[in-house]
């Protein structure tokens, strides 16, 4: 630990140093070392001051942010309100971006630089989520980054932010090397150098940790958690995350869905998933506790709604349904399927933790109540394209709420698909519920936090009771550190050197 270097192995590749190029969690995690945002989030994804010391809504559509003074970029430029204006303009317009940050700046109609340390945002409509959205935007320097291309960041030419670490080197797909920014405004970092290595293979990551090649690994394979826990050379840090694993149900057609048939494979002429009793049967027959224990090896909690306790919009008391195969069978019979059904459950095989194993386990459980299940895990590449074309009937997906706010899953997963409003973008089952849509729209126009949270909770309750989706569990984020290092787990899955400290 006194070597002043920390070596971290992460499981997902970092594809760019440009913090606005690709909106991707690993990129964002890396960016947090070098760049900073006006609003930052704590380990439970709650907003806290970053480059902005404070903010407030002046009226329904105007927000004022007061900036931290004396902050300098790594190359010596001063951080001012003008840089904020520049950043907001650049973020949505990075050439070739496969996934831009424009979604977080879209609400902003205008940026007013009041003085070097004060900036005002005018939003197009009432927009309570502005601080949350701005927590995603890394601030760049106008002088330095005026005409900077993504490659210039990668090569290090303009990789200057205000963050606690400076960029040294980036080898795509392999590693990033950082060194401490000694003139950072915040608390002094314990590490002189950070080696941030990309080791995609789970076992290789664990092996590297055990072999002492690295000090911290993220995305610890669930299969290894027990062993690592027992190993005195290693300490585990974990936290319930913001990613929910759930089943989506095809609601896009009413005259029958391709992968649900009668018990002998005969077409049904209607979509049994439109029947609430069938949906509830499907949900009740899943033994979530067993999945959490046997498949996830404890690295998850059974879920009955989108978000875990302590997040904005969590509905207290809305527990995961209790495993009740009897009730499920009854419901199925009531719905007109006493002899069960035959279904195919799809899911990715390489995307979420143990994804293929989970659907197999569900397959077992459903088969046991008379729903003969074929399980078909697919590579994410093909899976997601087909899911987007509504080719499946029942499929497993996950959702990580970057903002840690219930509006995010509600808007993307269960709100009626609507291009103009930007609703239901990931609603691949095309679930639709007018009541829910109305509640959500109201919530999104309510600045008052308490009122908004209430609306979101109501919407959530509707979605869950109507079985718009079948929530399974919420993943825990698990890290493992070598002896001599301690790590503070983060709900947002980001792996950062700032969360590692030498053990006392």
């Amino acid at each position, binding site marked *: 630990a006194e070597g002043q270097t920390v070596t971290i192995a992460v499981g997902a590749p970092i594809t760019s140093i440009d913090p606005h190029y690709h*909106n991707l969690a690993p990129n964002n995690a890396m960016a947090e070392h070098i760049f900073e945002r006006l609003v930052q989030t704590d380990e439970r994804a709650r907003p806290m001051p970053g480059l902005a010391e404070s903010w407030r809504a002046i009226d329904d559509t105007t927000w004022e942010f007061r900036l931290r003074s004396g902050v300098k970029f790594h190359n010596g430029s001063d951080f001012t309100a003008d840089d904020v204006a520049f950043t907001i303009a650049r973020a949505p317009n990075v050439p070739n971006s496969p996934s831009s940050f424009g979604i977080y700046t879209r609400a902003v109609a205008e940026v007013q630089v009041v003085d070097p340390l004060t900036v005002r945002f005018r939003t197009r409509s009432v927009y309570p989520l502005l601080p949350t959205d701005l927590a995603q935007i890394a601030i760049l320097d106008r002088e330095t980054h005026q005409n900077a291309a993504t490659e210039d960041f990668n090569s290090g030419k303009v990789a200057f932010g205000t963050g606690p670490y400076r960029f040294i080197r980036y080898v795509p797909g392999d590693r990033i090397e950082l060194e401490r920014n000694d003139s950072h405004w915040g608390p002094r970092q314990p590490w002189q150098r950070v080696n941030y290595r990309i080791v995609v293979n789970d076992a290789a990551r664990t092996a590297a940790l055990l072999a002492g090649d690295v000090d911290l690994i993220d995305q610890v394979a669930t299969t290894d958690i027990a062993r690592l826990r027992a190993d005195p050379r290693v300490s585990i840090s974990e936290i319930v995350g913001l990613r929910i694993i759930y089943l989506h149900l095809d609601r896009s057609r009413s005259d029958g869905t391709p992968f649900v048939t009668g018990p002998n494979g005969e077409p049904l002429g209607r979509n049994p998933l439109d029947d609430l009793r069938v949906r509830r049967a499907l949900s009740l027959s899943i033994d979530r506790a067993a999945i959490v224990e046997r498949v996830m090896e404890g690295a998850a909690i059974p879920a009955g709604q989108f978000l875990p306790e302590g997040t904005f919009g969590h509905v207290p008391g809305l527990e995961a349904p209790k495993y009740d195969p009897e009730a499920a069978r009854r419901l199925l019979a009531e719905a007109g399927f006493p002899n069960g059904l035959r279904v195919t459950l799809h899911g990715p095989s*390489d995307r979420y933790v143990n994804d293929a194993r989970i659907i197999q386990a569900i397959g077992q459980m459903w088969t046991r109540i008379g729903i003969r299940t074929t399980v078909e895990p697919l590579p994410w590449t093909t899976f997601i394209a087909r899911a987007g074309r509504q080719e499946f009937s029942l499929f497993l997906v996950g959702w990580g709420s970057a903002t840690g706010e219930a509006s995010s899953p509600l808007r993307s997963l269960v709100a009626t698909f609507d291009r103009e409003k930007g609703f239901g973008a990931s609603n691949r089952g095309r679930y639709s519920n007018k009541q829910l849509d109305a509640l959500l729209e109201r919530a999104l126009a309510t600045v008052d936090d308490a009122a908004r949270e209430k609306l979101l909770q109501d919407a959530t309750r509707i979605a869950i009771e109507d079985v718009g989706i079948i929530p399974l569990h919420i993943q825990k984020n698990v890290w493992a550190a070598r002896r001599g290092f301690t790590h503070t787990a983060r709900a947002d899955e980001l792996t950062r050197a700032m969360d590692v400290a030498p053990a006392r």
Partner: protein
Amino acid sequence: MTVYLIRRLMQSAVVVLAMTIILFLGVYAIGDPVEILISPDADQIERERAIAALGLDQPLWLQYLTFLENALRGDLGRSFVFNEPALRLILQKMPATLELALAATLFAVLLGLPLGLWAGLRPEALSSRVIMAGSILGFSLPTFWVGLMLIMVFAVELGWLPSTGRGPTAEFLGLHWSFLTLEGLRHLVLPAINLSLFKISLVIRLTRAGVRETVLMDYVKFARAKGLAPRRVIFVHVLKNIMIPVLTVTALEFGSTIAFSVVTESIFAWPGMGKLIIDSIYVLDRPVIVAYLMIIVLMFILLNFVVDVMYSALDPRVRLQDQRG
């Protein structure tokens, strides 16, 4: 020679063109990269913007023609993921892979040739049988499995060698190589062994088969009848003859070594081209996939050509022709 060159060139051009079409269609059919690359938070408008930004809104044939036009100018497109020229990305990774493949090939020749020679000269001896049994194992063991076992034993249990990664590199000829530092070498050992296991077996068996056939040849007997020392008979008369097929195959195999490093690299987190391509397939980074495969094809063509030239240099009977015997 000229005819040979022209024929080769024409064939290569056809192969490359055919390859581009197959690749383009193939990669296109696999899936939609936007679905994978886009942030889950993104709404439909953002999605459409991304599609346009990546040029995927154009009809396929137009995309292909654009690609072809750019390719002719040496531009194989920009990675969707890294937003860097695909070619540069791959070339950046190439030294690592080349280094690994070279080390594996070196292992194969340095170990395989003597062992094969021994087994071929004494086919009945116990040691030869052991060698051959070993070579069958080397042939049979799946690369991935061996890789895991190597890590388990040498890195995790014994802790002798690092488990993964490339280790520090030193610059030489403007490129970063890891064999120049001790630590780098230590990182190189396990993956190189893993990758070379199959080749060692191959070289052993080729050598043995060659030796067994060659020693029966009249010219070997004639060499002995001339009163040459056994050493000279073996190391000049026999070895020179079997070197031809062995080197040819080894050189040709170099291409597939590079290709097969996909597996080794992903197990040992070796930052080479193989790992890049696997990662790129996972995220459907189309330009990188296409560029990688094009480079591999070109490399194979080049390698074939080099092997042909080498073959004709080694074996005086052969003139450059369009096929090897």
